[in-house]
C-alpha cells in the first residue's frame, strides 16, 4: 500500500486533478510530444515510460493502444512493468495512426528530474515491427526541448518542461 501511494505521488496524470493538486508542490507538468512516421499501417501501439539509468523499469507515463492482449509486443515495457499491471488505467488511450502526433502532459516529480532517470518509448504495429526502447532520452533539464528520432516508427520525440 505504501509503495502504491509513493508511486502515485511521484507520477500523476492531469486527468486526476486532485492528485495533481496534492502533488503540485514537488512535481511539474511535462509535455511529451511523439510524432510518428507515415509508415502506412494500422494504428501504432506506443508505450512511454521511465527507467532508471540501468534501464530498469520505473513507471509508465503513457500507453497508446487499448487492446491489452497486444501489450506484449511493447516488449521492454511489458517485461518491465510486471507487477505494475493494475496501474495503467488512467494513462491509456487510443493507438496512434500513421504520421500522427501524440501529445500528452504528465506531472513528473522533481525528484525524478536530473536524477539519472530515462524516458523510453516502445512501439509496435500489427504485421509490422516491434521496436523496444526505440527512444532513450535522459530525463534531464538539458535534454528537454530537443527532438530525437527513433529507428522504428518515431520520427521525432521531445519533452518540454
Amino acid at each position, binding site marked *: 500500500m505504501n509503495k502504491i501511494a509513493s508511486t502515485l505521488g511521484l507520477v500523476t496524470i492531469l486527468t486526476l486533478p486532485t492528485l495533481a493538486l496534492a502533488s503540485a508542490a514537488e512535481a511539474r507538468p511535462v509535455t511529451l510530444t511523439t510524432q510518428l512516421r507515415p509508415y502506412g*499501417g494500422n494504428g501504432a501501439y506506443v508505450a512511454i515510460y521511465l527507467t532508471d539509468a540501468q534501464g530498469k523499469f520505473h513507471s509508465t507515463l503513457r500507453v497508446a493502444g487499448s487492446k491489452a492482449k497486444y*501489450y*506484449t509486443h511493447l516488449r521492454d515495457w511489458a517485461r518491465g512493468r510486471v507487477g505494475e499491471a493494475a496501474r495503467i488505467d488512467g494513462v491509456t488511450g487510443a493507438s496512434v495512426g500513421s504520421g500522427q502526433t501524440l501529445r500528452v502532459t504528465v506531472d513528473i516529480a522533481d525528484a525524478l528530474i536530473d536524477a539519472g532517470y530515462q524516458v523510453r518509448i516502445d512501439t509496435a504495429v500489427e*504485421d509490422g*515491427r516491434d521496436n523496444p526502447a526505440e527512444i532513450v532520452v535522459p530525463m534531464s533539464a538539458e535534454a528537454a526541448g530537443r527532438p530525437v528520432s527513433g*529507428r522504428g516508427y518515431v520520427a521525432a520525440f521531445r519533452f518540454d518542461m
Partner: protein
Amino acid sequence: MPRLLHSLLGLLGSALISVLAVTGAYLAFDSVIERARSAGTAGGPRSVATLAEIVQSRHPEVERIVRSASGSVIAYYFEGDRAGAELLDPVTGQAISPHEPSQLTRTMTNLHRALLMGDTGRVITGICALSMLVICISGTILLATRMGGWVALLRPSRGTAVQRLHCEVGRGAVVGLSLSALTGCYMALATFGVLPDGSSSVASPRPTPSGGERLAVSRLAALQSIDLGDLRELTFPYGTDLTDTYTVTTVQGIGDIDAATGQLLVFAPHGLARQIHETISMLHTGKGLWPLALLLGVSALGAPVLAAAGVLIWWRRRRAVPRIPQNAAAKAADTIILVGSEGNSTWGFAVTLHAALTTAGHRVHVAPMNNQARDYANARRLLILTSTYGDGDAPASAKSFLQELGRTTPLPVAVLGFGDRSFPNFCKYAAEVDASLRGRGWPMIADAWLIDRQSAQDFAEWGTMLGAAIGTPLTLVHVAARPKTVALTLSQRVDYGAESQAPTTIFRFVAPPTPPHAGLWQRLRGPRLPRFGAGDLLGVVAPGSDLPRFYSLASSSIDGVVEICVRKRPGGLCSSFLHDLQPGSTVEAFIRTNVTFRPGGGTTPLILIGAGTGIGPLAGFIRHNRRRRPVHLYWGGRHPASDFLYEAEMKQWLANKRLTRLVAAFSRVPGGAYVQDRLTSDAVELRNLIQHGARVMVCGGREMASGVAHALGAIIQPLGLDLANLKSEGRYLEDIY
C-alpha cells in the same frame, strides 16, 4: 419460423454480409497466393538455428524472424538507421523480395474485421457472423423441407430460375459459409474477451541470463532443436546488451534462450485456450491449410449471389401477394384458399372470397399456390383459384404447385378457373389442376368452375353453389379494384371510315403538363405515365365503368404522345366514349406492359400483318425502325378512300426506308381481298423471308388472326415447319382482340 428468420435476417443483413463475404474471399485467396509465393514450406528441412544463421550473415542487425500463419517467413532487420524487412525462402534462407505489407490487403482486413469502424464495427461484424450462421441453418432446413426431406437434399432443385440459382449456390456454399460464420462468431467473442483466446497482456518477467559472450546463433542448442515448421517468431537479443536473451515463440509455447549458453532459460507452454484459438483462427482464415482457404473463399463468393437472389425472391413473393386483413395462419385455418395468378387480378377474387367466408365465421388462410403447406392441421376444405398463363401453363404463383402436390395431405377441394373464353386454351391450367387432384383421389366439393373475363356474375354464382355445398350461405360481390390512372388530354384525332360505316380514329393524347410553378416534389410526384413502347397496352377507364378496355399503343414514351387507333363498335361503351371526345377533353388511363409483343433487336426481316385498327402497334414499330431493318407490312382495310389508316405516314416511311414493302388489301373494292389472300399470293417471297429468320407479328381481330394463321401455315409447310415451331422460337407473335 425458419422462413421468417431466414428472410428477416437475410434482408437486414444482405448488404453487410456481402461486404464481409467479398472481403473474406479476397483475404482467403490472398493467403493462398501468399503461400504459393513462399512455396514448399511445410516444415522445411532446416532448423530455426540454421535459418537464423543464414539471415544473420546477410543482416548482422537482424531483429526478428516471423513465420506467418500462412507459412511465409519474414525477417526484420536494421541496416544502420534504416529499418528493413524481407520475405525469405524458408528452404534456402535467401531473400525472395523486400517485404512490403500490401495496403489493399490491410484495408480488406480492416473492412472484414470491423468495417473500418473500430470496436463498433467489430460488434456489427460479430452480429453479422451470428446472423449468417442462423441464415445457413434455417436455409438448410428450408431447402430440406422444399426438396421433401433430408435424403432429398441433393436432388436437382425446382422453381423459377432465381429460386434454382438460390438453391444451387446455397447448397454449394453452405458448408464453407457455416464454417466461416461459426468460427467468425468465436473470433468476435474472443476479441471482446467473452471467450478466452489464451493471450496474455502481461509479459513474463525477463529471466536472468548468464551474461557471457554470445555464441553464434547456429550453435544455440535450443534453437537447433526447433523445426522451422513449428516456429512462430524468433526475437534476437538487442544490440550488444549481454543481459538480453533470444525469445522464441513456437506452436507449443514461448521461451527465452540464453545467448551465451544456448540453453532454454524458461519455457511457458501455450494454454488450452490459446491452442483452441489458433485452431479456430486457422479454420476461419484457412491460413496454413490452403485447400480450406480455397473452399472458404469460393463459398464466400456465393454469399452476395445468395443475398441478391434471396432479396429478389422475397420481393417477388411479396409483390405477388396483396395485403389480406385477418389472414388466418395455415395451421389454424378451417378453409384454405390457394391462388394461382400471373398478374394480380385473381387475387382480387381471392380477397373477396376470403372476406365473405371470414364474415361467415370461418377461419380462412389465403396463400399463393407455390406456398402450399404439407399439412393443414385444422383445414376442412381447400379452394383453388387459378388463372392460366399463355397456352395452358401454370401462372407465376403456381409454378411449383403440381410438382409438390403429392406431399400435401388430401382435403375436400374445389377448383375455380379464370380465363378468357375467346382464347383456345380457356382455363386449361385450372382443368389440369382439377384432373391432377382427381387423379390423386382428392375428394371434390364440386366440379371445376370456369370464370370468363373476370365476370363478377359467374363468380357470384359459384359462391352460391359453394355456399350450398359447405353449408354456409355465401354472397360474393366482387368489385374489381380500379387501376391507378392518369388523366390524359386528347391533343389530336384523325378520323377515317365514315363512308364505310366503320368509324375509326387515331387518337393522340398528351400527359398533363406540369404546372409552371410546381415545386420539385410536385414535379416528381405529379401524375405521369411510366415508360412505354409501341405494342404495350393503354387501359382506358370510361366514365361510369370500373372495367378498363385495352388498346394497343402505336407510340412510345419518346414520341411524347400516347397514340391509339380505335374503331367505334356499335354499343361499345368505351369506344363510343372515345369517339365522342374532342381535343382538349381528358380520359382516365394507365399503361400495361406487353413484353411478349415486341419486334426485338437484330437485323432479321420483320413481317408485320394486321387488319383494321391492328395497324396501330405495327405503325409504331415501323416509325421507330431507325436502323432500317427490312420490314414487310401486310395490312387489310375496307376501302382505300375511306379507312386507309396512316396512309400519308406509310408513304413517308417507304420513302425513308423505315418500311421496305407495303401490301394493302381492301375488301370493299371490286375484286376485293383480305390480308390473308395477299399472303397466299406472296407465298414464295414470304417463305424465303421466313427461311432466312424473319419474325412474324400479327395484330388484329380473332377472325383475321385465324385466317392469317391458316394461310401462313400452308405457306411454310414446304419448309418442313409449322406455326408451333415458329412460336416456340418466338418468331410468331400475336396480339389479338
